[in-house]
């Protein structure tokens, strides 16, 4: 019924109605059941997005926005069969790189890699400048989920780089936030009166559909120095990571576990053979003097904490090809599925979180061995907070979405790996249990979506306030129903 109208808005070539296509777009990486969208449309401009939403909502259809699809928590999966799914990837213009006023405007479907390259041409970058999946992950999706990695130790999560948003609300009304909403304004600050930018960040698409974003810019550093340390235990790794973060001078600080170090050793970083726990990172500076001085402080600190300095080529390699490692964030080295779960903790809870995870895995040792499930423990400092990401690897059917993202020679090899129902069930079950353990410890999460417990984890006053806000912005509940546990 509305299919024709939607096809007129976005162009017939930009509509998917066949069963396989709709199923493809309706699924994410979480291996969970979904409703299949009734139609998938790919709008080409913010105006088309607004029109699509207006038409869909008028017909009582919920809408859901999908970016790069790199979701493990059902963020964009439909919960109702009459959902109109918007594939946002055609909104791929970097609209303006303003180096006088230090902001960049990008459409929501721009990927982090694309954004980085566009800004780098002008000698600038966004403070948070992308995820490891940034070849595919879009800025709109990353802001709906919130995101971490490049730039995070110094500048926090993606949220902290936002200066303003353009959002399509339920019913198709478009609003801009911050100074962007001023008649004669440009998006140079989010703070003008009550900051409306905030609610649309980390909402996992519950409150509106972002069409354009304005992000802060900083100068590209003229000097970058890598550092790398080997430590004897997981506790030592976490302590070192968080103490370096407290200096406030490293741009990224992250920790690898024995599994990850083994993978990198096999890739050719042979100095990692036999090395268990490592802490890696980068200090950037406006010039060599500043970067060198910062790196020296990091090394002094590490020495005081008893860490051993090792070859820094891993963090430098990560920086050299920041978005090229997609395969290793989607899969294990032999084609295993990679499935993360994470918790964000204050420093004081880092050890408890680490101990709890290790104890949990110990308690499941038999099951893990029986199903040949491997585990990795990745850590990152965001600001001074502890980001802990245990991940599960197991052999399973990878599916078209994963396979299309990796090099053909690996895809061909791994596409025949079968689905083993029991293994998947065990792995997914452990993921849920570990999430509950983290929540008991007061963890918070990115990309809450329809997977992390949320309504049961927040105080009633917060839940009521969020609901009141949702009702104010989306009275009929037609924006991504079910997200954050909001009907």
């Amino acid at each position: 019924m509305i299919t024709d109208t939607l096809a007129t808005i976005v162009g017939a070539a930009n509509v998917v109605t066949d069963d396989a296509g709709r199923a493809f777009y309706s699924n994410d990486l979480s291996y969970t059941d979904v409703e299949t969208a009734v139609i998938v449309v790919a709008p080409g401009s913010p105006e088309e997005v607004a029109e699509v939403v207006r038409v869909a909502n008028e017909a009582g259809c919920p809408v859901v926005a999908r970016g790069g699809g790199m979701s493990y928590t059902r963020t964009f999966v439909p919960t109702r069969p009459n959902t109109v799914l918007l594939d946002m990837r055609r909104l791929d213009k970097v609209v303006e790189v303003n180096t006088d006023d230090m902001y960049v405007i990008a459409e929501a479907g721009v990927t982090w890699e694309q954004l980085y390259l566009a800004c780098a041409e002008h000698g600038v970058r966004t403070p948070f400048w992308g995820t490891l999946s940034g070849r595919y992950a879009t800025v709109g999706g990353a802001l709906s989920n919130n995101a971490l990695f490049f730039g995070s130790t110094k500048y926090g999560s993606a949220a902290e780089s936002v200066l303003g948003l353009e959002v399509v609300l339920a019913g198709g009304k478009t609003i801009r936030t911050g100074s962007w909403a001023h008649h004669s304004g440009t998006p140079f600050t989010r703070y003008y009166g009550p900051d409306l930018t905030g609610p649309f960040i980390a909402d996992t698409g519950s409150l509106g559909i972002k069409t354009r974003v304005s992000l802060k810019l900083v100068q590209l550093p003229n000097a970058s120095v890598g550092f790398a340390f080997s430590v004897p235990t997981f506790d030592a790794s976490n302590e070192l990571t968080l103490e370096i973060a407290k200096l406030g001078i490293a741009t990224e600080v992250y920790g690898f576990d024995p599994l990850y170090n083994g993978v990198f050793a096999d890739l050719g970083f042979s100095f990692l053979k036999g090395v268990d726990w490592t802490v890696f990172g980068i200090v950037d500076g406006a010039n060599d003097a500043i970067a060198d001085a910062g790196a020296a402080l990091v090394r002094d600190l590490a020495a005081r904490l008893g860490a051993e300095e090792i070859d820094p080529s891993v963090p430098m390699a990560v920086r050299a090809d920041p978005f090229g490692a997609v395969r290793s964030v989607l899969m294990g080295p032999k084609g295993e599925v990679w499935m993360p779960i994470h918790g964000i903790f204050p420093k004081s809870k880092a050890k408890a979180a680490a101990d709890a995870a290790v104890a949990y895995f110990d308690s499941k040792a038999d099951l893990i061995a029986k199903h040949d499930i491997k585990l990795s423990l990745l850590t990152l400092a965001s600001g001074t907070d502890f980001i802990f990401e245990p991940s599960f690897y197991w052999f399973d059917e990878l599916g078209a979405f994963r396979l299309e993202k990796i090099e053909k020679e690996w895809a061909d090899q791994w596409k025949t790996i079968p689905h083993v129902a029991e293994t998947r069930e065990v792995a997914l079950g452990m993921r849920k249990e570990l999430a509950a353990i983290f929540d008991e410890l007061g963890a918070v999460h990115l990309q809450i979506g329809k997977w992390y417990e949320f309504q049961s984890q927040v105080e009633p006053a917060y839940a009521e306030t969020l609901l009141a806000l949702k009702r104010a912005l989306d009275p009929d509940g037609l924006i991504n129903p079910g997200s954050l546990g909001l009907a």
Partner: protein
Amino acid sequence: MITDALRAAIGAANVIEDAAEREYYSWDLSQEPLQVAEIVVRPGSAEELAAVVRIAHEQGIPVVPRGGGISYTQGFEPSVAETVLIDTTRLKTIEINAEDSVVIADAGVTWEELYLATSAEGVRTPYFGPLSGRFATVGGTLSQNSLFYGSGLYGTSADITTGLEVAGVDGKVLRTGSWAQRNGSPFSRYYGPDLTSLFLGDTGALGVKTRAALKLIPLPMANQAVSFAYDTFEQAYAALHEAAKLEIAAELFIFDPANHAIYRKLGFSFLEGVEWSLHFTVEGIDDAIVDASVDILRGIGTRAGGGGREIDPSLPLAMRADPFGGGLRGFVGSEGHVRLPVHGVFPFSKVPAAQRGVVELIARNQDVIDRLDLRITFLTAITRGYCVFEPVVWWPDSIGPYRARHAPEDAVAKFGSVPPNLEARAAGTGLRREIALLMSSLGGTHLQVGKWYPYRDSLEPATYETVAAVKHAFDPRRLVNPGSLGL
């Protein structure tokens, strides 16, 4: 009736009905009083504050929160006499969590108190206060948004906030961010939709803040200042702009010739013959990093804007040595003038046009200015990513109850009995309003919007409607600071 309930909740001594006292509390610094609140209350804790809000709401009586009184925009002035004005300055609890890099401060804590408490533990908030920080309170400042100390690196008060506690209309207390997690603490702002941001810059329109969680950093042990003299504003600003984009200075600001005249009288003789001065304060954890940053700034200062002349840096150093004492001087001028700032928040590129526009506006009004002994000085200051351009209008007038109570004794002794100068007041206020409109027309936004800056008129209707919808969701009966933001 309500007074009985209030007395029972917070003690009779803390419920004020004396007319002179109520007038003192109901005037801000703007010389534009509205109504005098019928009741003023001074709760002693976050719990008592929440109780007061609930009691007033039960009776359908508006509440207005008031912090240190440093408002120039009628922020807490009651729109209606039947108001319970809540003085938050008895709320002084500070909880420092240096391990997790967060401090929880009650709304009534002043920035000076916060700095003293945290610095005694070797930490401080990254932005650590406005010039008025001896009086300005955390709650009031977060409602207004403000900047200065540390802002060049760390932004505004909004940028350092990780969570808020807000007293709801029903007596329920809302906590935001990770603070809302049932086992959580306020270490991370981002956990689901960022509701914290709605209350930042709301000028007290959306709820009454009881406590705030703010980031902490280690006290930077290395610090230097460097200053330059220029002949014109354009030259000084060119250097300021270039330096600001590097984000290596903690404070960056320009003083004008009129400010120099004042400082010369205070003993800063090196300002003789200096037209416009540009000042940088640099701080960091290590001398080498600070030295290298100073070198860069020295290079910019001597080259940009046609090249400046380096001068004695004792002005910014003196400000740092006594960061909050200077605010006292700002209350009453040496000849009895009251001093009223009016500002525009601009992207870097728009400041020169704003400055020229204001200079022309002043020239057009020179007759009135001369006749009524008005004066205008300028302060231009950077916060991370953009600029605040702040003309200050001075005129001779009665000093009002706030200045009478808080200005230095000698000034009050000399000028305390000066009668109202309504002609100068009308001219000065009119000039302020004209400047505000001019800056808004040039794309300038504002801090402390209050009941004064042209907020509604400046915004795209869709955005203002959304702000109004949020207000309606949170405060359907319009009982929280009615009139603030035009709501």
